[in-house]
């Protein structure tokens, strides 16, 4: 069986169940890179331009982890991910990702450059093209695609329930790839803690335990219930965005919409904006969130910048300080909002 490697970084957090199921339906074996670790990150950093964002450096590390293990490398090219009016894009680096990898690493297995450009080409066509390159056509291709779409749908449902991506991936892929109900693995996330904190940031930062220094866990250990942007339904995001038009980066729109949603909820005690150092879109959107979205009535908002040098201790200190701040401001308000 041909082995296809998928790096555990960037678009992995969005599309992995879809790609895995699709590739397996086409007769391939899927290999995922190991979890991020010190060496993997260092490898990535060494092969990258200094001032590129951390998530791309991580992606490089994950690619290098797969190089000797697979026959093909699967690298997505996310050009546009939203249909609808007006031009929308992802970040330039997500658009140029396969170009960067191809031109800067040597000794790579052949690359499957999977284009997602829904404004110009339906996802189905991209998938059909991929099937064709595996020599699979007709009913079998259709079945593979149908199965993959179903798995992706279940995956998104898990995410909406607040299940973090890695757990959700396991849940939807462990029961036969597409026809089971993955939802049984969705535990009730909110409970236990006395604080509700929302994490707003790209999934590939927030949910990579190494680069985020286990941020969600840290918050939970400090007694917080954590909400993620993956739990905000897209209809809600759209509604919030109506107040902040004019953004054409799809993923940043999600951050903006989710931030606006969390900042206006009275059951949320604090919002942490998690941004990657050297991330271009984040540098703009974080400014729009703090200046246009946040009001005097909003719960405390903190920005946490992550990079390859951010140590465990640095994150811990900032998170503790934030949680303290929330607790202190709470005891000071004598009459809490009834909610």
């Amino acid at each position, binding site marked *: 069986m041909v082995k296809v490697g998928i790096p555990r970084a960037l678009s992995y957090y969005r599309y992995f169940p879809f790609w895995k199921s699709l590739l397996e339906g086409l007769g391939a074996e899927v290999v995922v890179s190991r979890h991020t670790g010190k060496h993997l990150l260092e490898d990535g950093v060494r092969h990258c331009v200094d001032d590129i964002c951390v998530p791309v450096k991580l992606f490089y590390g994950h690619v290098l982890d797969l190089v000797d293990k697979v026959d093909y490398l699967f690298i997505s090219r996310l050009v546009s991910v939203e249909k609808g009016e007006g031009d929308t894009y992802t970040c*330039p680096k997500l658009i140029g990702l396969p170009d960067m990898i191809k*031109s800067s690493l040597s000794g790579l297995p052949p690359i499957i450059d999977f284009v997602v450009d829904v404004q110009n080409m339906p996802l189905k066509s991209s998938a059909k093209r991929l099937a064709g390159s595996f020599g699979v056509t007709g009913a079998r291709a259709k079945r593979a695609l149908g199965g993959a779409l179903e798995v992706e749908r279940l995956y998104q449902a898990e995410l909406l329930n607040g299940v973090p991506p890695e757990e959700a991936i396991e849940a939807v892929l462990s029961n036969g790839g597409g026809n089971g109900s993955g939802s049984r693995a969705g535990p009730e996330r909110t409970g236990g803690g006395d604080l509700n904190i929302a994490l707003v940031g790209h999934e590939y930062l927030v949910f990579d335990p190494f680069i985020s220094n286990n941020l969600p866990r840290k918050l939970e250990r400090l007694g917080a219930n954590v909400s993620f942007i993956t739990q905000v339904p897209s209809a809600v995001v759209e509604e919030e965005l109506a107040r902040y038009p004019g953004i054409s980066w799809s993923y940043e729109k999600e951050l903006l919409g989710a931030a606006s949603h969390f900042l206006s909820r009275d059951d949320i005690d604090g919002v942490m904006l998690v941004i990657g150092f050297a991330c271009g879109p984040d540098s703009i959107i974080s400014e*729009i969130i703090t200046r246009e979205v946040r009001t005097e009535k909003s719960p405390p908002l903190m920005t946490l910048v992550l990079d390859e040098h951010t140590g465990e201790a640095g994150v811990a200190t900032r998170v503790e300080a934030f949680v303290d701040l929330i607790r202190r401001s709470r005891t000071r308000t004598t009459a809490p909002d009834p909610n």
Partner: protein
Amino acid sequence: MKVSFPHMGNAYIALSSLLSNLGAEVIVPPRPTRKTIDIGALHAPEFVCLPFKVNLGDNLRSLQMGADTLAMVSGMWACRFGYYGRVQHQILRDAGFEFDSILLGRDGIGYVYNKFRPTVEGNLTLGWFRAFRHFKRKAEAVDKLEIKSRQIRPFEGRRGSTSRALTEGLSLIHEAPSLEQIDAALSGALGLLEDVELDRDREEPLRIAVLGEIYAVLEPSLNFDIERRLGEMGVMSYPVMSVYKWLFRPLKTDPRITIDEYRARRIAKPYIAYVLGGEEHQTIAGTINAARSGYDGVLHLYPFTCMPENICRTILPRIESEFDIPVLNLCLDEHASPTGVATRLEAFVDLLRQRRRKRPPARIMKARS
């Protein structure tokens, strides 16, 4: 209306003319310096790209000089530049300044068109027409001067004489109020440049293509006046972009620019398959073209964390070896030191001189297209 806008090379000359012909009082902030960048950086988000900080610094100066309206292009772009105006103006308002915004692109043509109804005397359409003609004439004149000075600087007898003549010439054009006077100013200015004493016996200068992010290439305060530096080192520089192209490209009125853009995209396509929203095609195609036309080297300039150029920088080493052309990458930020840049530039020029000695110039490279 006292209107102002941030600097971009010598674009202020054409832009002032456009706005003053529309009846606005134009406030031109002083040309940005390192200090402008520092002031901008103080108010800007920490890791936003450098042009943002320079623009913000310019805006602060303009407001201090009494501007009540700030103009900026804005709108749907794939890159950060599309959001500059929106965020900068918010930062300034949060800092307590009050002013009116013109965000060209975001506000829509109709809004911007009508904005000048109160200031234009007589028919508004005619006013715009007249303003555009002046704008165009000045942009063309400035372009001619820039090209001319670039050609003579490596040969100047006394260091700095070209730049002095250029500055004088530019101010002649800036001050010319009518089309006839712009034409007269241009011939006067060209005359000034022709009077610069040249030493024609010098050896053939090195030829270096200058490319990368557009502000980094065209704004001297950002790039430590690279064009002048190169010229005074006896190097002929060929910027891939120009202020003229920057002004007219979005207007799509000049077919030469459109064709050039199309060609660049085509040449860059095997390396960058999709549009990234910056100058990536000009960077990649410019490097390949430089090699093909037998240039000695390429200078790649970009602001720290610039997204499209980070991608280019990742790809350029491959082009460097495939096409056998040396590339120097200069990443610019507010902490970059002029001596650091000068040292790297000198080392690069030395390297190119040695290389030139080993091989005859103007060798046409054979490489895959």
